[in-house]
Structures are given as structure tokens and as C-alpha cells.
């Protein structure tokens, strides 16, 4: 019962937060300097971790499939299969997971600390909507920057996959990429971008919400950060399934 209540509170709270952010956005109340600042913080800082995660995930995937495909005389499908998996799943999901930790946790921690040290109240006292100052620039920066981060991590994953395949099967780069145009079409790229945008919005909105709900001193902020990351990762897979089902029909 307690968990159900908590879940309903969370859904209601995030819905209200999303509505408020959309209202502010539609009214054109965006401060560009705050947006640029957040783009630098959220985007640039999260590229290394996303690149690293994608490199290893792609290498493992290629390591597993390359041997099997060579045995069946289908080595030239390796690159195409890797690209499909990267676009449909690996890039959005692994970048999302990396970002949930790399940007979600600091957002919750920063807003949570501001909440317990009365800085959120100070914002209100200064006639400033905390959602305008804190949430809106972060959500937009996340939505803009996650596809950018995804490009970097995608390329890294692709080349890590090729290097693994080359080492295991001595496949040439030309043969590795030969099946990409056959197996991959525009809808795969669209799915990747849509998932990136949705995941980034989910990650940042959840992280902000958890920060605003933090209470109970430093321990409370710690709990909010942990809950934020856990909820974000679960939500990522929920939305991944929903989007995959909708977009592959």
C-alpha cells in the first residue's frame, strides 16, 4: 500500500512538474544563459563516461556474435547487426544509464541540497519560479545534449565493435560495414533519436523531482540521489519497452 501510494505520488508529482515546464516553455520564458550553462555541464561532462560504456558494450556484443557469424559464413553481417543493435538499443539505453548516474545524480544532489538549505525558498522569496530557474534549463539541455552525446558514444561503440571483430575474425573494415546499408534504414535512426530525447527528458525530470522532494538533511539528500538513480534506470527500461513496441510495429 505504501509503495503504491509512493508510486502514485511520484507519477502525479512528475506530471505536474512536466506540465509546469511545458507551460514555461510555451510562454517563451527561457533564459538562454542558463540553458547554455547547463548544456555545457550536462553534455560535455557526460561524453567520456558514455563513450566508455558504449565501447565496452559494443565490444562484448561483437565478441559474442562475430565468432558465430564467421562459423556460419556470415561474417559480413557483423557490422550491420552491430549498427542495428547500437541504434535501436545500445546507444539510447547505455547512454541513458550513463547519464542517469552522471547527470541525474548531480541534479538531484544539487537541487536536494538547495532544498534543505532553504535556497529553493530563497528563490521563491525572490519571485523566481524554481522550475523556471532550475528545471526548465536542465530538461532542455538534456534533450538537446543527449543526442549529441549519443553521436560520440555511437561512433565510439561502432569503432570498438569493429576493432573487436577485426581482432577475433580478421575482418576488413570494408566488409564489416558492407551490410549496414542493407540491414539499417532511416527508421532505426529515428528510433535512436526519439529514444534519446524521451530518455533524457525522463532522466532530468525524475532527477529534478527527487531533488525537490528531498528532506531530512544530508542523509535525506543521499536517499533522494539513490532513489533518483534507481527510479531512472527502471523507468529507462520501461520507456524502452514501450517505445520499442510502438516504433517497431
Amino acid at each position: 500500500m505504501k509503495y503504491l501510494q509512493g508510486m502514485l505520488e511520484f507519477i502525479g508529482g512528475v506530471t505536474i512538474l512536466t506540465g509546469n515546464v511545458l507551460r514555461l516553455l510555451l510562454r517563451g520564458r527561457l533564459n538562454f544563459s542558463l540553458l547554455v550553462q547547463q548544456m555545457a555541464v550536462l553534455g560535455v561532462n557526460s561524453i567520456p563516461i558514455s563513450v566508455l560504456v558504449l565501447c565496452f558494450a559494443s565490444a562484448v556484443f561483437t565478441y559474442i556474435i562475430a565468432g558465430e557469424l564467421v562459423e556460419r559464413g556470415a561474417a559480413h553481417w557483423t557490422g550491420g547487426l552491430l549498427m542495428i543493435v547500437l541504434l535501436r538499443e545500445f546507444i539510447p539505453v547505455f547512454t541513458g544509464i550513463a547519464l542517469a548516474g552522471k547527470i541525474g545524480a548531480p541534479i538531484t544532489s544539487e537541487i536536494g541540497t538547495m532544498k534543505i538549505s532553504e535556497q529553493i525558498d530563497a528563490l521563491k522569496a525572490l519571485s523566481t519560479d524554481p522550475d523556471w530557474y532550475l528545471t526548465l534549463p536542465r530538461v532542455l539541455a538534456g534533450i538537446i545534449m543527449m543526442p549529441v552525446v549519443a553521436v560520440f558514444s555511437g561512433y565510439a561503440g561502432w569503432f570498438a565493435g569493429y576493432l573487436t571483430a577485426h581482432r577475433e575474425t580478421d575482418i576488413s573494415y570494408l566488409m564489416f560495414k558492407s551490410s549496414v546499408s542493407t540491414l539499417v534504414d532511416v527508421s532505426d535512426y529515428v528510433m535512436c533519436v526519439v529514444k534519446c530525447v524521451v530518455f533524457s527528458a525522463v532522466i532530468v525530470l525524475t532527477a529534478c523531482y527527487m531533488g525537490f522532494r528531498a528532506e531530512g538533511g544530508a542523509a535525506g539528500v543521499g536517499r533522494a540521489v539513490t532513489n533518483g538513480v534507481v527510479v531512472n534506470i527502471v523507468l529507462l527500461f520501461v520507456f524502452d519497452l514501450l517505445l520499442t513496441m510502438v516504433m517497431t510495429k
Partner: protein
Amino acid sequence: MIVFEDVRVRFGRQQVLRDVNLHAAEGRITAIVGQSGSGKSTALRLMMGLIVAEAGRIIIDGQDVTDLGEREWFAVRRKMGMVFQNSALFDSLTVCQNVGFFPHFVDGVSWRRVRAQAMEMLAEVGLEDHALKLPGELSGGMRRRVALARSLIYRPKILLYDEPTTGLDPQMIAVVNELILEMSERYGVTSVVVTHDLECVHEVADHVVLLENGVAVTVGSAHQLLVSDDPAVLAFTGNWRRTIQGYAQELAGD
């Protein structure tokens, strides 16, 4: 002017304020005193619209704000400033950016113009040399003065102080008290000071209200704290009075 009419506040099962009636006159300094947990800060947060009353009526500068929504409160708060107990400075911004926050982010004035204005305000509180520091690099007293400058830059009609002297050394207490008086005298600001520092009250307040277990007892002038025989006032000021009387006797003996 701030008026509370039969204001009640409850947090869960705990009744924090019970039918509180209060009147903070325009251009004067009203002190709300009381023991920890008596509901002083709650009263201040009600005035700022940071919490909602369970019952009663609140009037700020002639406007009934009791049922205002969050967005409507933003307009009311433009004429109010608040100095929080722990200063609540934005720790990712420099001192100068903290002070210039309202003109830049709320009024949309460019940083170039705001910087000059903020430096002027910082000079008024004696901190112009610390403009580029982060709040974490300042002492408690300095942070309190920055918070005051941040509230004063947009010339509010009403200033609320939450425990402005708590945790400060005697020298800094005198500085803060002087600033509160100066802001009231120079700009005619209506001030409400929440504190349990009776020295501060005696120094700055024109009018005193005592909160005891969520019930308001009007004390009157600050001098009444020394002479009132109201049992609630006596219970709260007893030790302080005895200390002062002790000093007076010592001085008389000398």
C-alpha cells in the same frame, strides 16, 4: 503593513499556530519573539507565502493573500524581501551574482548594469571587496550581510528577518542590528524580525509580539520586555531580566 487575523497552522497532528492575531505597522520594526518551536519562523514563512494557513486571514500591504496560488504569490513577493536564518545564498553563484540575482533574473537587466548596482549594494553592507568570492568562502556574519544586500537591491517595501543575529559574535550582532535599523530608517521599510535574541529586540524593535506554544501575546514596545508582568512574558524574559538587573546592581555598587 502585515495583518494576521485568527491564523491557524497545522503540520500533521501538530498545531503550530493557534488563532494568531498580529499587526506589523508600516515603516516600523516588529519583533516576533518566543522559544524555539513556538512558531516564529512559521509565522514568517506564512508572510512570505512559503506555507499555507489552515484557517484565518493574512493581509500584506492591503492585499488579502490568504488564498493566493503560487504564481500569484510571485507578484506579491516582488515587494517583499527575506533574510533567511542560514542566509540561503545560492552557493553556485558569486557574492556579486547573489546580490544581483533579482534585477538580472527577475527584471531581466543585463549583468553589466546589474554588476554596478550590486557593487553599490555590497558597499552599503561593507563587503565590496568580497564580490567575487563564493558564499562558502564567507563568515556567517558576512553571509547574513550579503543576504540583506540581495534583498535590499530591489528596494522591497517589507523585509522579513529570520533569526538575523543567531550564531554571530557580539561585534557582528551589533553590525547586523545597525543595518536593520538603518534600512528601516533610511528606506522606510516595514520590518519583521523573528528572533529569540532579546538584546536584538531591545535594540531594534518598535513593537514586540511574543509567541508561546503557537499563541500570540502582544507585548507592546521593546521596553515592555523589561517591565511587563504578563506571566508569559515573565516566563520568557525572566533570566534575561535577572541578568540585566544583576548588571545594574553591580554598576550601582561600583
